[in-house]
């Protein structure tokens, strides 16, 4: 390794250490608030997972007939039925799970997110059609948000498109990625596998660096493993990214009976976002070809190095967070 390479590495590490706060941007900021019914219509509320911005800063609005002053909430004879919302969700606070534990009947969970800021509490009893629609709306939107805000996942998909190009090979590769992340997302969500979030995020960053290296190899005329077996690489790393998707759901602490449906809707949302991104990239590739606007030969390697640099920046930053947590 030359001195210049050491210098570059040192600069990357230095930049990473200086700006670790920027790197947590993709980690979900969640809170869980539990309301336990102590007598008909009267609840005791407590934060079982306090949000990172502080419980006191959450502006929770309950149905008008309910009187809320945490830890107490009194809804009278009518009970806890109606709309619950949080008015100040945003970049620092993406979702809050409200768990309602009635005296009689099954506990219910409602997710208030930036995508779905108002939820309707429908009382006790079997889930109604409205409850299913609300669940679908919440989790499809949450899935779309998660993939659109997940620059690391999108960068990995971009790298795959770059290597594979278009046509059936791309369809197979993206399908393999989808199968991979869906399988591990389900396994992680049901508790069959468990990986700590921080090291996993570092691995996700490394997977993007791997794709960056594969692009450079391809440009140098060497057939890397991704160029030869793109679907296998996409499936393998899809498993890693899927566990990352699951971490977004895990913190919500959904009740087990609703988990399969929530998982399905969340995955549908992720696929919608991913498909939109793939179609946009393909449209831009098509447009560049039509305009004959291709990257000059001297700049061909730039995108690969950009992908590699960004991913290594993330990797070192996430590694710092892993060690900081120990």
């Amino acid at each position: 390794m030359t001195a210049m390479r050491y210098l570059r590495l040192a600069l990357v590490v230095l930049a990473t250490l200086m700006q670790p706060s920027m790197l947590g941007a993709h980690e979900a900021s969640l809170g869980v608030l539990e309301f336990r019914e102590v007598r008909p219509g009267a609840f005791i509320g407590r934060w079982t997972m306090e949000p990172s911005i502080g419980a006191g800063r959450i502006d929770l609005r309950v149905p008008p007939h309910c009187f809320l002053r945490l830890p107490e909430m009194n809804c009278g004879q009518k009970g806890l039925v109606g709309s619950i919302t949080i008015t100040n969700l945003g970049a620092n606070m993406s979702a809050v799970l409200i768990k309602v534990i009635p005296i009689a009947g099954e506990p219910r969970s409602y997710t208030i997110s930036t995508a779905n800021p108002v939820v309707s509490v429908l009382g006790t009893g079997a889930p109604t059609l409205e409850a299913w629609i609300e669940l679908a709306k919440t989790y499809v939107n949450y899935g779309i948000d998660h993939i659109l805000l997940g620059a690391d996942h999108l960068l990995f998909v971009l790298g795959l498109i770059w290597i594979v190009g278009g046509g059936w090979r791309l369809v197979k590769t993206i399908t393999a990625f989808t199968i991979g992340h869906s399988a591990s997302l389900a396994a992680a969500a049901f508790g069959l596998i468990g990986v700590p979030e921080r090291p996993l995020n570092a691995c996700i960053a490394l997977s993007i660096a791997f794709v960056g290296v594969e692009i450079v190899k391809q440009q140098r005329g060497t057939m890397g493993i991704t160029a030869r077996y793109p679907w296998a690489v996409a499936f393998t790393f899809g498993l890693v990214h899927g566990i990352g998707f699951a971490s977004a759901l895990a913190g919500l602490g959904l009740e087990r009976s609703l988990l399969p449906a929530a998982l399905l809707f969340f995955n549908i949302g992720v696929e919608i976002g991913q498909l939109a991104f793939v179609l946009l990239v393909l449209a831009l590739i098509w447009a560049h070809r039509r305009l004959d606007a291709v990257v000059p030969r001297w700049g061909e390697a730039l995108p690969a190095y950009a992908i590699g640099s960004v991913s290594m920046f993330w990797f070192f930053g996430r590694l710092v967070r892993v060690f900081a947590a120990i």
Partner: protein
Amino acid sequence: MKLKFRRGWIAAALLLAQGGAAEAHIVAARLGDFYMGALHPFTDLQDVILWTATGVLAGSLGASRGRWLILVFPLGLLVGLPLGRIFGAASAGLADAAMMLAIGLMLAAATRIPTSALCAISFGLAVMRGAANGADLGPDTDRVLFAAGLACVGYTIITLTMALTVVFRGTESDGSAPWRTIAVRALGGWIAAIGLMMASIVLAS
């Protein structure tokens, strides 16, 4: 019937002249400032019309002339954004209207402007609209993310519009139907008419 049409035109022109961008800030709450930057231009019809008109103009001049805009246009938006913060929105209604009128007339007349002129017009327009987009940002907006989103959407719209126009028009050698050229020129006439109406309203108010 004519009166109805006239009312419709006046309503549309008023909408164009007074379209606000405040609705875009809702996006920030959900998806952050990058997507706010990317969606901000879609809340202002002046952006939508001017950007599309520029893409169509560049595409109608052919791929070899137009492709420079892939870099020039987003660069102009990035230059305009901080200027908007410093000087406020440089883009008054009259300037937007004049730009629409000029680009529309060039399209309608099928003017073959040189590449340098096309780049200069596009850069000027992008600076103007970048300033307009950056003028009303809140103090808590992450300007780097907003600028990245704005530049990305500028690149995407210009590139796709140019490519679609190039494909639509075809080449002279492949014997494309002459109606396609007429359609592009007619579109230019419409853009010029919108610009003229906007200018009239701005001058009258």
